[in-house]
């Protein structure tokens, strides 16, 4: 009897270990987006559709996004943007000019960490024979994935990574269409010098700026770009503090900022750490007259919901996609894209979804129709010849790649949270509202 129960226990134990190892080692499945997504086949399906190399076949476009993990919301939004671009093209008859018009299939793989993005990229290339990979959301993830693509001579079509390092590497097969950390830096500095300094009645050299950033590639690069641009104008940087984005306490950073008594706080963070920082700033009564966020995370709907009225007046940098100063045709397209995005994610259009949509749409409407095939060299050639003026995409951007494959026409604008919504307040060419609440009221007056 004793023997049997011991044996049973061992068998169960072994089964548990085997099952758990199987779970641990299984390829990451894509997480379900908030609303069920039709169309695209999950990446974990067995290989069946080879990339379109002949007429009549589907064109296989591959993608890696963080669909689970701490940045899954941004990752899912970006993926949805790419998927909507594919849907629009397919409904319009596929990619014109490529083998006389082909339908597109977007494969998606889940990359919740930089390592996972690299290994999924490897898998997509070696097992699915992908020729073009779209991705991804976080800079550090995109650095890892695009390095694998470069090694395999596969095009990595950048849709979200912001760090300047991505293009500074001079990769042959990497292209970035979206805004980057140098753009964030220039917009932050431009707005601070052009608007904030005047409203605070201070000369640039009398302004004190405290920069806090999440310490992965995105936050670090955006913070450094902002610091460099502000230093050029002799603005005093009174703090430059990094933290891990997953931290559960930022009171020490808040106290340090409080001790430095800055005029302007520049957070280059993700949404969760920013929400935590701002709540602890209130708890510790850290008052700062102006908050100039580095990116859309600083005015994310989740932040606005969590902070409530405390979110009012916060400025943040993003692509000028929300501008109404666009051609009627683009405004119509933007509305259509917005409605389709909501069907996938349950959320309205966002910075990340625009960064997923625009590069994919440009690739499918402006580049692939001109190449006649999926050969990397032909794609690079067609991309380098592309010349779209500012304001010709729903992101507000134009497209002109430089020799490092950086889009020189990916401009940014400054937004502000007013009455729980975000509006462009600078520069004039995109602005729909005036910047207000400079300086912010103290915590007890909100």
């Amino acid at each position, binding site marked *: 009897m004793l023997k049997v*129960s*011991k044996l049973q*226990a*061992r068998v*169960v*134990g072994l089964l*548990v*270990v085997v*099952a*758990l*190892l199987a*779970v*641990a080692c299984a390829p990451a499945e894509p*997480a*379900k987006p*908030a609303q069920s997504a039709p169309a695209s086949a999950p990446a974990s399906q067995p290989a069946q559709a080879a990339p379109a190399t002949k007429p009549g076949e589907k064109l296989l476009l591959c993608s890696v996004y963080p*669909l*689970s*993990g*701490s940045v*899954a*919301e941004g990752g*899912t939004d970006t993926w949805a943007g790419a998927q909507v671009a594919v849907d629009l093209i397919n409904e319009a008859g596929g990619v014109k000019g490529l083998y006389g018009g082909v339908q597109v299939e977007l494969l998606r793989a889940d990359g*919740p960490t930089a390592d996972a993005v690299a290994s999924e990229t490897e898998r997509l290339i070696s097992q699915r024979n992908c020729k073009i990979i779209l991705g991804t959301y976080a800079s550090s993830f995109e650095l890892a994935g695009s390095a694998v693509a470069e090694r395999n001579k596969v095009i990595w079509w950048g849709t979200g990574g912001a760090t300047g390092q991505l293009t500074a590497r001079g990769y042959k097969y990497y292209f970035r269409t979206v805004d980057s950390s140098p753009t964030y830096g220039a917009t932050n500095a431009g707005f601070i010098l052009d608007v904030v300094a005047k409203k605070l009645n201070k000369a640039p050299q009398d302004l004190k700026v405290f920069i806090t950033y999440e*310490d992965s590639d995105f936050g670090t690069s955006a913070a450094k770009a902002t610091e460099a641009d502000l230093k050029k104008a002799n603005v005093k940087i009174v703090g430059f*503090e*990094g*933290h*891990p984005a*997953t*931290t*559960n*306490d*930022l*009171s*020490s*950073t808040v*106290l*340090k900022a409080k*001790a430095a008594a800055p005029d302007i706080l520049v957070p280059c963070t993700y949404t*969760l750490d920013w*929400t*935590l920082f701002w*709540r*602890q700033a*209130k*708890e*510790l*009564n850290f008052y700062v007259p102006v908050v100039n966020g580095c990116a859309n995370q600083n005015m994310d709907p*989740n932040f606005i*919901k*969590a902070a*409530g009225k*405390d979110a009012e007046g916060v400025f943040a940098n993003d692509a000028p996609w929300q501008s109404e100063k666009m051609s009627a045709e683009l405004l119509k397209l933007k509305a259509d894209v917005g409605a389709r995005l909501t069907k996938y994610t349950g959320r309205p259009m966002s910075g990340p979804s625009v960064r997923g949509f625009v590069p994919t749409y440009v690739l499918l409407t402006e580049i692939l129709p001109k190449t006649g095939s999926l050969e990397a060299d032909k794609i690079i050639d067609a991309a380098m010849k592309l010349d779209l003026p500012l304001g010709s995409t729903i992101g507000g951007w134009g497209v002109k790649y430089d020799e490092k494959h950086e889009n020189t026409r990916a401009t940014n604008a400054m937004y502000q949270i007013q009455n729980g919504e975000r509006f462009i307040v600078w520069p004039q060419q995109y602005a729909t509202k005036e910047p207000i609440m400079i300086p912010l009221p103290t915590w007890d007056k909100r």
Partner: protein
Amino acid sequence: MDATLLGQMIISGLALGGVYVLISVGLTLIFGVIRVINFAHGEFLMIGMYLTWLLVTYFKFDPYASLVIVAPAVFLIAVLVYLLIIKRAQSGGSFLVQVFATFGMGIMIQNSALMAFSANFKTIETRYAGAAILLGPIRLSVTGAIAFAVGITLAIALILFLQKTYQGKAMRAIAQDRDAALLMGINVDRIYLITFALGTAMAGIAGVLLMPSFYATPTVGSVIILIAFVVVVLGGFGSVPGAVLAGLIVAMVETFSGFYLESKFKEMTYFLLFILILVVRPSGLMGVRGTEEIGHK
């Protein structure tokens, strides 16, 4: 150094320490008595957070009132987990089986949460968010004050329980010598069950206390559990008073290193502390010498 700032950092550190204490006492208790290092301990904190979120969002509970439901619920889940997994893994005899079983269980719980709640983070809105108690010029967040008060109270209650009650004494007896305790007529199986469920419920309670000031994601447990391991090693594996002291010390180290160095170095600082303890005093501040060598005799 400005005295107000120093006082503020100590208060902020203590407020942070409450949750660390609570999650670590459970972990160290389970180790001390059952000799299982529960790698899924953080996942029970995550379960506590999601249960709180559900109660607050759908049943309009006050987050702290949800304690009365979340603590027993996590206790019951832990009873099931003990009977279905821990007990069987333990009777296998191999320490490796326990490691794989709890580690794998953690992955399963994480992925179940991912399926149930998606990867998007969940927060709750409370009227205390951002509110602070003024102690002269020093500010103590309401959520931190409650976490500290509840954390320390429960830890002291647990120490008294271990000292004064029959069950507590039986737990300590088993921790000292399992075979002798068995010979003295202590129902070891039952005490194991109670210990595991009690220690795990502490993690669930820590989840409730954390929810008003933090957010729930499927991976939140794995972030916090790393800190809990540092606390448990510093306090001494198996020592509940040690975990209380160490929880507060680690929180202080985190706050001070965040201020004097930079927040991005705070993880490095407490892991350096972790390595240092392992080298200098492997049994921890209040651990019994030899407890670091785990496994049955």
